[in-house]
């Protein structure tokens, strides 16, 4: 059962990722990324991290993707030029990607982490639920938590400054 769920979600995640980079229309790329994010949320659930899965669906697939859809609708699709600054970039890039994948896999799988081949230790029922994550965030990781809230505030202010319609910019 777990294998079926894993491979289904993995195929969904990989198909979504390939769709993002292969589809010509940016709107379809955004839709493919939503498929990818939902599949990843299922994988997070398989790894018994309920809170991360819920945050993935609510924050990413909900809020961030709506923002993307708005901007794609505003900017419009538009075709991409076929001009390449480096000759043969379209053929070299996949080779580089395959090399990167092989290198990452070899680096991780040949490491001496013995627990990699196992399912992980048995965990109690509350592993990864909102209460556990919230306790960790407000006790052990209070400083990163506050720093990330400051970062969010800065990003919101920065977006307003960037997208603000200035009179001298239109002249």
């Amino acid at each position, binding site marked *: 059962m777990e294998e079926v769920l894993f491979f289904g979600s993995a195929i969904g995640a990989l198909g979504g990722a390939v769709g993002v*980079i292969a589809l010509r229309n940016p709107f379809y790329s955004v839709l493919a990324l939503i498929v990818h994010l939902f599949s990843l949320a299922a994988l997070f659930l398989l790894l018994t991290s309920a809170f991360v899965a819920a945050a993935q669906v609510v*924050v990413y697939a909900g809020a961030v993707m709506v923002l993307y859809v708005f901007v794609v609708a505003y900017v419009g699709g538009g075709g991409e*030029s076929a001009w390449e600054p480096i000759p043969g970039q379209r053929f070299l890039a996949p080779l580089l990607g395959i090399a990167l994948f092989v290198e990452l896999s070899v680096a991780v799988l040949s490491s001496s982490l013995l627990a990699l081949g196992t399912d992980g230790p048995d965990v109690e029922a509350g592993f990864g639920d909102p209460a556990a994550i919230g306790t960790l965030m407000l006790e052990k*990781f209070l400083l*990163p938590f506050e720093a990330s809230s400051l970062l969010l505030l800065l990003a919101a202010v920065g977006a307003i400054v*960037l997208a603000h319609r200035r009179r001298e910019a239109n002249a």
Partner: protein
Amino acid sequence: MSIEWYIVLSALLFSTGAVGILIRRSPLVILLCLELMLNAGNLALVAFSRMVGNEEGQVFAVIVMVVAACEVVVGLGLIVAIFRRRLPLNVDDLRELRG
């Protein structure tokens, strides 16, 4: 499922995102590919958190999600600003900052 499978899948997704950044020209799609790479990192973090059996890696993943949201907000603000000035939305044409 053993943890290796998740790590290999994460490496595969990361490489897919990297290839996307190299072959696409539109800044919107490049931002989407950045999301792919950040999410691949998240998958690895959560898988390792499961492997060692404590939740700290999941807190890392949530913080990565916050950073990704900030990056999207600023990136989309830049794209809207570029569009407003009627500049081409193509990373090869926007090369004034190149050395």
